[in-house]
């Protein structure tokens, strides 16, 4: 059981989200805007925050910034709308962990938050991990697909290791570039795209329709753990 804080100004949506999390066995606190969410944060701790983007008084972006300013590490998932890619990038760069685009399915929302909560339980990523038919040993720097060793270039391995550090979370292009190359200068999104493409060809069953390494259009990439 986790304690979930839901900030959403639309009563109907708030009820739907609350019901969904309660059915999963979580303890839900639902508030109507960012300001009230911050007040609650002063009173108790939460394991997960689900917030709407556009709210009166204090919006989602400001809420994320305020929460991170207080050094709270609880994962934050933001409910956004279609075609707001710039806003999504801003949210992620401000410290949000993931977003779900409205209109979202309840199942999708729950699957995303499950991944975020799981990561919170096991803070340090395990040295060895298995995702479907992919086995990764971060210490030995080996990767196997269907039991066969896969050779990854250092950059491909670095991309994979970075994303496995937060399975399920979205990485913006900038975050990935900074983490893998150490700089965002001189490397373009297109360079990143080429390396991710080659990584997909080695790991994915259908690289054109990737299952593990998903594209978040105009935002970045996500390593999607099995739901």
């Amino acid at each position: 059981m986790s304690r979930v804080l839901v900030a959403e100004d639309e009563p109907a949506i708030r009820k739907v989200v609350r019901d969904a999390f309660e059915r999963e066995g979580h303890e839900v606190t639902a508030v109507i805007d960012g300001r009230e969410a911050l007040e609650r944060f002063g009173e108790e701790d939460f394991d997960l925050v689900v917030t709407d983007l556009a709210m009166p008084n204090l919006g989602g972006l400001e809420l994320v910034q305020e929460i991170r300013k207080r050094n709270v590490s609880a994962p934050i998932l933001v409910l956004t709308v279609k075609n707001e890619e710039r806003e999504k990038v801003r949210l992620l760069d401000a410290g949000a962990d993931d977003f779900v685009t409205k209109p979202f399915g309840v199942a999708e929302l729950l699957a995303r938050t499950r991944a975020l909560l799981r990561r919170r339980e096991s803070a340090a990523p395990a040295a060895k991990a298995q995702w479907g038919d992919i086995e990764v040993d971060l210490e030995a720097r080996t990767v196997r697909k269907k039991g066969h060793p896969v050779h990854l270039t250092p950059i491909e391995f670095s991309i994979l290791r970075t994303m496995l550090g937060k399975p399920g979370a979205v990485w913006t292009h900038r975050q990935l570039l900074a983490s893998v190359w150490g700089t965002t200068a001189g490397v373009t999104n297109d360079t990143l795209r080429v390396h991710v493409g080659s990584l997909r060809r080695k790991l994915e069953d259908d690289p054109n329709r990737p299952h593990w390494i998903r594209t978040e259009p105009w935002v970045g990439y996500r390593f999607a753990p099995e739901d």
Partner: protein
Amino acid sequence: MPKTMKGTTRWVGYPASVLVVAATIVLLKLFPALTDSSIALLLLLAVFLCASVWQSGPGVLAAALATLGFNFFFISPLYTFTIADPRNVAALFVFLVSALLIGRLSALSRRRLRLLEAERRDLIALTQLSQGFLSDTNRETLLGVAADRLRQALDCEQVGILLADEKGELSQRIETERIPYREDIAELAFRQGNSAAYPSELGGTDIYLPIPVGLQRAGVLVARGLRSSERLAEACALLIGLAVERERFLRLTREAEATRTSEQMKSTLLAQLAHDLKTPVAAARGAMENWEAADGGSGASRLAREQLSALDRRVTELMDVVRLDSGAARPRPERVGCGEIVEAAVARFGDALADHTLFLEPPPPDLTVEVDPAQLTEALGHGLENAARYSPAGSTIRVSAESRNDEVYLRVSDQGRGIPPGDRDRVFDRFVRLEDAREVPGSGLGLFIAKSLVALNGGRLRLGESEGGGTLFEIALPRGAA
């Protein structure tokens, strides 16, 4: 003022000079102790006075009178014009030359001073005019005030400012008084940029000056009975040009600002409307999902959920159309790789392609276009959805990008039945769906939206035939500067 100077004062100068010189002589006679050289110097002073006050004519008269007077009253033998000492002849000659020179020099400096004064007045007039122009931002009042001020500044009888309209006719006219002027000369000044000046029947000059704006001409400045310098008039024409241009820029800026504000308002209102329409649908769908999860669900609940999803898509499409129609869908272009567009469209609309084989031809990494990424993703996405809808499950959908000449092509081709050539234009109209597609769900808005989005980004969308006889969906975009 120069007029009175030239007329009355000069005429007065001659008797006045005679009086001044005579008075000086009488005064000098009262002091017999004075030496000849002192007398000569004091007489020269009188000449200088006359020349500087009444200029050259009276100055020369004063010089001659002073020489004669000096000879008659002060050089021995007194009271005759004869000179006993031959040295005094030379002295008298030197006196005459000095008197003439002093008269000339002082008259000259006086004239220079007056010119400077006139230039200063012109400058003040220009400064006041420009201040007047710059403080007024309304074209009509600006020009009305301008004409009046110009008449004063230029010291003329009538001022006309003729401005060209959009058709290049000198239709807008601001005149201080209705006195007819030469239309043909005004026309010539405007068309060819020649200025013209004629002696005026009103006295002074009639002048026709083109009003320049950049390399063009905004109109003509007519000044009749001009008595100040033509140079000042030219400077005024330049000033009017600047004022007209400034007023035009201000107006354009204001218009742009107004358009922007109204577009922003529309955009905000539409976003609010979309939100209000979609929230209940989304909530109903979520509630249905919760219900199914708690209850196991049924065929009926699944149908309801699917229909709510379909309703949500329709609302989305309708709002897209409204946004496109109202001009609120403003593209925000960025330089993006074609590979990114393809990848984004497949990621977003990939679910619709679950039953098909997807074949992506990776475009060269340096193939970029300058477009709004979200809008292009959406347009290409509609192509993918269409391909998935109208080609059989299991068949291949091919996505490719190619650069030819100055254009970049993004293509989606399928292995469906294709669209008959005669219908390929018609299907872009809103709500048009072909007869044999009735069974497939769809609103008939997708292609219309796609075409509008592509057009907004400077591209073209066309439908053709793919290699296997299926449909080819092709977006052509200008390659733009790399």
